[in-house]
């Protein structure tokens, strides 16, 4: 299990490959990997966005993420988990968050991965401030339910 806060651009696929190379132990038991990657879009709530700053609470963020992963491990037979989250100044197209969950069976992988990203979005102390193409700045007030209602 690993939790990583990145102040610089990260490639989620390289993070996964590096993690797996460093932790090859469980590969024979793994039958399913569910991976979620959140990426910065160039629009939000109808406005064009050209950048974003992600603030966090060093110490508490990692502690809350570790709690969320422990809850997932209690609910599902999880073999391993990797969570990476970006902080600092971010541009459209860049990865914000990576959640990877490895299990024996696919239902467990999907359920645990979705639980972790949903819990992260409601409990892990990160805050987004958007820079619009109009040069206005605004704090994102609340996360949405995750569906396109447009």
């Amino acid at each position, binding site marked *: 299990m690993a939790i990583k806060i990145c102040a610089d651009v990260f490639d989620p696929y390289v993070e996964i490959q590096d993690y797996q190379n460093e932790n090859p132990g469980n590969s024979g038991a793994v039958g399913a990997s569910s991976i979620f990657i959140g990426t910065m879009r160039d629009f939000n709530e109808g406005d064009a966005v050209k950048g974003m700053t*992600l603030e966090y609470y060093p110490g508490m963020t990692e502690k809350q993420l570790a709690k969320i992963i422990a809850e997932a491990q209690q609910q599902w037979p999880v073999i391993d988990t990797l969570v990476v989250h970006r902080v600092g100044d971010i541009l459209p197209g860049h990865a914000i968050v990576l959640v990877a969950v490895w299990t024996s069976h696919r239902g467990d992988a999907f359920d645990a991965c979705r639980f972790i990203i949903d819990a992260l979005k*409601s409990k892990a102390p990160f805050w987004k401030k958007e820079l619009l193409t109009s040069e206005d700045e605004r704090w994102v007030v609340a996360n949405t339910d995750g569906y396109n209602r447009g």
Partner: protein
Amino acid sequence: MLMSIKVRYFASLKESVGRSEDNLVFTGLSTVIDVWNRANPGRSLPANILAAVNMNYVELDNKVDDGDEVAFFPPVTGG
């Protein structure tokens, strides 16, 4: 009893209070909302603000102890 409490503010709340932390020293028992009121006299806690003591979420009537770190921040928007 002498209480030494670090108070931290994040994100939009940090901007509206105009600082990122306070170091309070006072005597007597206290709760999270008491800490806010001592650190921000005359300013009521904005709606929806979340609180943590020593990096765990707590309710506003949670007791605080000497040496605790108390944090206030708006709803989180990561991921």
